[in-house]
């Protein structure tokens, strides 16, 4: 762009121009907006921008069918990407710091499910955690357990959310690979690892899916009905509902 001001004022001009450009839509707001529009977190993965260099590698692979399949079936990965893009040194819009739901539309692929790997411990359905009354961060306010990383320092909300997303993406990977037992095992760890869960509803729907795909149809359906009763307006309801079909 051509200079607007005299040379002696150029520094101030540049600084003001930079201030005008240093605004971006925060990843949290993007996810909230997508959810508000009823198109959920998977949408975040539908279009991958490579504005931030960190994710440049993704664009080189994005054209491949592999990436399309991964991104399409794993909205969570997109959400993780967007969270990470937050590290770009630009001014994001007001940090809402609360992402309550990520709608990740899991693949409904009916690929033949291989047997679980030998090392996967069997999970008893009775051991699976039941969805708490409230799954937002407020649900665990009474809990004395603090989420501390190995260094003992309190984690930021974004960092916790990133870990949660990472954990749930492992669950989804196991489900897509036809390993519901492994998915259930990971989901069993979830409430203890993330007592102040921000993605509890997502975890609950994944639990329903894992139970269903693991052959516990009746238990999955009971759980799905309870989910729909408790969260009739959840954008994740459609996913829960599909397990009620006989």
């Amino acid at each position, binding site marked *: 762009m051509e200079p607007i001001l005299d040379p002696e004022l150029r520094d101030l001009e540049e600084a003001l*121009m930079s201030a005008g450009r240093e605004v971006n839509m925060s990843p949290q707001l993007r996810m909230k907006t997508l959810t508000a529009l009823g198109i959920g977190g998977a949408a975040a993965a539908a279009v991958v921008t490579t504005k931030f260099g960190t994710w440049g590698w993704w664009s080189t692979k994005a054209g491949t069918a592999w990436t399309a399949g991964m991104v399409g079936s794993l909205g969570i990965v997109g959400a993780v990407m967007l969270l990470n893009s937050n590290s770009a040194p630009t001014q994001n819009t007001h940090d809402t710091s609360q992402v309550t739901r990520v709608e990740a539309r899991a693949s409904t692929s009916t690929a033949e499910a291989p047997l679980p790997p030998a090392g996967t411990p069997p999970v008893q359905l009775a051991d699976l955690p039941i969805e708490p009354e409230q799954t937002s961060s407020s649900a665990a306010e009474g809990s004395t357990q603090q989420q501390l990383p190995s260094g003992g320092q309190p984690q930021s909300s974004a960092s916790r959310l990133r870990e949660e997303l990472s954990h749930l993406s492992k669950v989804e990977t196991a489900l897509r690979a036809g390993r519901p037992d492994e998915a259930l095992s990971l989901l069993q760890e979830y409430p203890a690892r993330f007592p102040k869960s921000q993605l509890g509803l997502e975890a609950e729907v994944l639990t329903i899916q894992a139970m269903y795909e693991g052959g516990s149809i009746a238990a999955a359906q009971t759980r799905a009905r309870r989910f729909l009763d408790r969260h009739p307006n959840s954008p994740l309801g459609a996913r829960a509902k599909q397990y009620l079909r006989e």
Partner: protein
Amino acid sequence: MVVVALSFPSAHVVQSTQGVAMTPASDLRLRDLVVAQGDFVARSLRNLGVWGGELDDCVQKVFLVVARRLEDIEPGKERAFLFSCAQNTAAHFRRSVARKKEVSDEALVHRVDVSVQPDRLIEQKRHRELLDRILETMDESVRSVFVLHSFEEMTMAEIANVLDVPAGTVASRLRRARQIFKEQVSSLQLRGTEESA
């Protein structure tokens, strides 16, 4: 910015929160707009005078309008539509702020994002406030041209397309905007020199 759009099959028709039936195609188009143009909308709103916690709400308002009017938006005219929505939303915001007559100091603090480092924050805050003051001295029509040219780096032809005005009008508004900007920055610089002396 490179944008890679991937298409996914979606067998269902979803009902958005606004009661608009979304087909898979419109669903995908809307997603693309939010992801690819979200920064543009947020930045435009901010530079058109929206600040604080309202910025998030205004961004969402713009996209809710887009969701309702998606079928009316001609392909290739998306940015024009988004900017027009942003202008209207920002104008509404400014009117509501003006009705409140005075802005509290507490609210002013929130004009700048607080998630950055303190030293950077101070500098950013100062520059952002100076820029806001300058932009507020411009008429809306002049300001829009200036915002699109200076912060979105659009050419005059692109601005003419977005604002649906003749290129000559864009050129004259831009000249006027530059003149105002120059005068205001000179004035700020002068004031700063006097204060430090």
